């Protein structure tokens, strides 16, 4: 049976129909750019910490707060930040594994979860898949790996033999011999092999966008490199778009086209990878990049770029969330949260810092061009 026939067996709307659905917003051309594959606006998720006798809300963790970004078709958007900055929550919100408090996700012009004519969550899952960080926990220990891969297509209506057949091809695609690996259980595989299985599983529904949540972070360096190369190959082979979440700045630089820096649930800076790495505009990005280990012993990092831990997201600082650790913090940073705006002369980038907004009231606002 051909691949095309396999795909036709999947219930739900094939891609060509999705495009023609009503309820789509925006036009194909948005200010000189093509319509983004994924448009996220004002995404917010606050977790209530409950406790006490009456289960009252004691505090609110502002895990993701007013995050907006776009992902263009075919690009890789890297998301970096310290642990606890809301990277993984963002991923889970995108996949709708947890519902957002506020905010909209628009996939290919269709509002996700909209009541009339939008993209249902089930359809979203066919278009968007995710690879989790923990390769072992994300595979059912009681299922042979081929079954784990075949599960998604099976759920979406493909008969079991056809779904298994697709799993075989995907095993092949991720560089694992189906004859040797199809019937193995997760505990019989190495971490790198398991992560390949997870990637195959994510690809089983033929998604257009794959969210990689620290997908290579738990692997050895050599295995990590192999899996990264595999991801690059698969991207070309399957016309994929990636959202690549990582704390490893080198890996993000290698794989990403654009990078988004998050701090305490907010976007600090977003821009093309080379611009951002060459000329970071936000003080946090600058600190983050200077913390990257240098390969050259003569250029070792001499003093810690930032002291202390990020503040508690339960009660984040007023105004700019970074101001408590920012060497340039002034009075204005305390009062007004900086908006994410394109700095003068750089249309492709956006920075949330008062220093980059002329006339914001920050003493460096007008004078500083580039740090």
């Amino acid at each position: 049976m051909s691949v095309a026939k396999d795909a036709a067996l999947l219930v739900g709307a094939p891609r060509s129909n999705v495009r023609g659905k009503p309820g789509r917003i925006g036009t194909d051309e948005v200010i000189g750019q093509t319509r983004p594959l994924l448009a996220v606006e004002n995404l917010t998720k606050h977790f209530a910490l409950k406790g006490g006798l009456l289960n009252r809300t004691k505090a609110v963790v502002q895990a993701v707060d007013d995050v907006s970004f776009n992902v263009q078709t075919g690009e890789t958007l890297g998301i970096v930040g310290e642990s606890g900055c809301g990277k993984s929550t963002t991923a889970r919100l995108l996949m709708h594994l947890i519902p957002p408090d506020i905010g909209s996700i628009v996939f290919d012009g269709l509002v996700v979860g909209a009541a009339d004519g939008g993209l249902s969550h089930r359809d979203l899952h066919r278009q968007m898949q995710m690879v989790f960080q923990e390769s072992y926990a994300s595979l059912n220990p009681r299922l042979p790996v081929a079954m784990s891969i075949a599960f998604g297509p099976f759920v979406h209506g493909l008969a079991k033999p056809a779904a298994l057949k697709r799993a075989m091809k995907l095993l092949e695609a991720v560089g694992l011999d189906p004859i040797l690996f199809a019937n193995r259980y997760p505990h019989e595989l190495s971490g790198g092999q398991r992560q390949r299985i997870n990637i195959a599983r994510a690809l089983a529904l033929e998604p257009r966008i794959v969210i990689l949540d620290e997908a290579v972070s738990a692997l050895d360096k050599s295995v990590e490199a192999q899996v990264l190369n595999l991801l690059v190959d698969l991207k070309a082979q399957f016309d994929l778009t990636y959202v690549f979440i990582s704390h490893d700045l080198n890996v993000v630089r290698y794989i990403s086209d654009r990078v988004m820096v998050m701090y305490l649930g907010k976007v600090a800076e977003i821009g093309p990878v080379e611009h951002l790495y060459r000329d970071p505009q936000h003080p946090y990005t600058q600190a983050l990049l200077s913390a990257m280990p240098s390969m050259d012993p003569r250029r070792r990092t001499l003093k810690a770029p930032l002291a202390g831990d990020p503040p508690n997201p339960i009660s984040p600082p007023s105004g700019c969330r970074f101001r408590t650790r920012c060497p340039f913090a002034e009075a204005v940073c305390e009062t007004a949260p900086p908006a994410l705006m394109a700095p003068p002369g750089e249309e492709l980038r956006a920075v949330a810092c008062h220093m980059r907004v002329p006339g914001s009231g920050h003493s460096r606002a007008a004078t500083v061009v580039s740090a």
Partner: protein
Amino acid sequence: MVDVAVLPADSAAAFKRAQQGKSYWRRVWERLRDDKVTLAVIGVLVMLLIMVVFAPWFTMHDPYTGSVLRRLKPVGTPGHWLGTDEVGRDLWARMVFGGRLSLLAGVMPVFLALLIGGFLGVAAGYVGGLVNSAIMRLTDVLYAFPSILLAIAITGILGSGLQNTILALTISFIPPIIRISESVTTQVRHLDFVEAARASGAGPLTIMRYHILNNMLGPILVYATSLISVCIILAAGLSFLGLGVTPPSAEWGLMLNNLRQALWVSPLVAALPGVMIFITSMCFNLMSDGLRQAMDVRL
């Protein structure tokens, strides 16, 4: 549409192998095959089952007709190789027929409790929140009573008899089964593979069927087989106390109770029903241990 990698020639063979591939249960069976003790124990239990089901073929005597002339004959009496009880009924016949009720009262409550408790436990664990609190707090109420006390109380209220015994034992076994299945489900449902299953668009029932149940079944089956021996003893205990099966029915616990008076006259005969209870529950316990080892895939 995205094109998947080219299909190599031998991939069809691989596909076939995957379909005929060893399932989890097949691997369990392979491991079990090497475990001689567990196999022997299962053999004994199967023999017991056959004996009980085809009871009339295993004895020439009627378990209910006694004879005043042949009371309390010792083991090895011609015609009654295990002797006779206090009203002269053939003990072997009563043992064989008694096994019917004893095994039924031992297995049935566990089976029913497994169905009810397993369902409630998975529901509590998967849904969480208020449903979990409601089910688990009710379970705690039942947990407050020792199971034998609970069973005695229930049969005390409902009256004696086989059905009430089974009902009482079922109720007293539901709480531990709920608790185990709830804890396993709660553990599993927060793992990434359940998230990944949700991310592939599967509904709660599909996830429970394919991802929760197969992770829960191992531990819960092992626990249930160990409960069977407890259940047989409890059922025998209820009969012994006069709350279970009523005379003249043959049931091991009841037989033990009746033969108690003959303990000084014919100690071996009086102890035999107890020996049967011991052997059966021992076998179930050993089987549960063997299953536990065979089902641990990570060994």
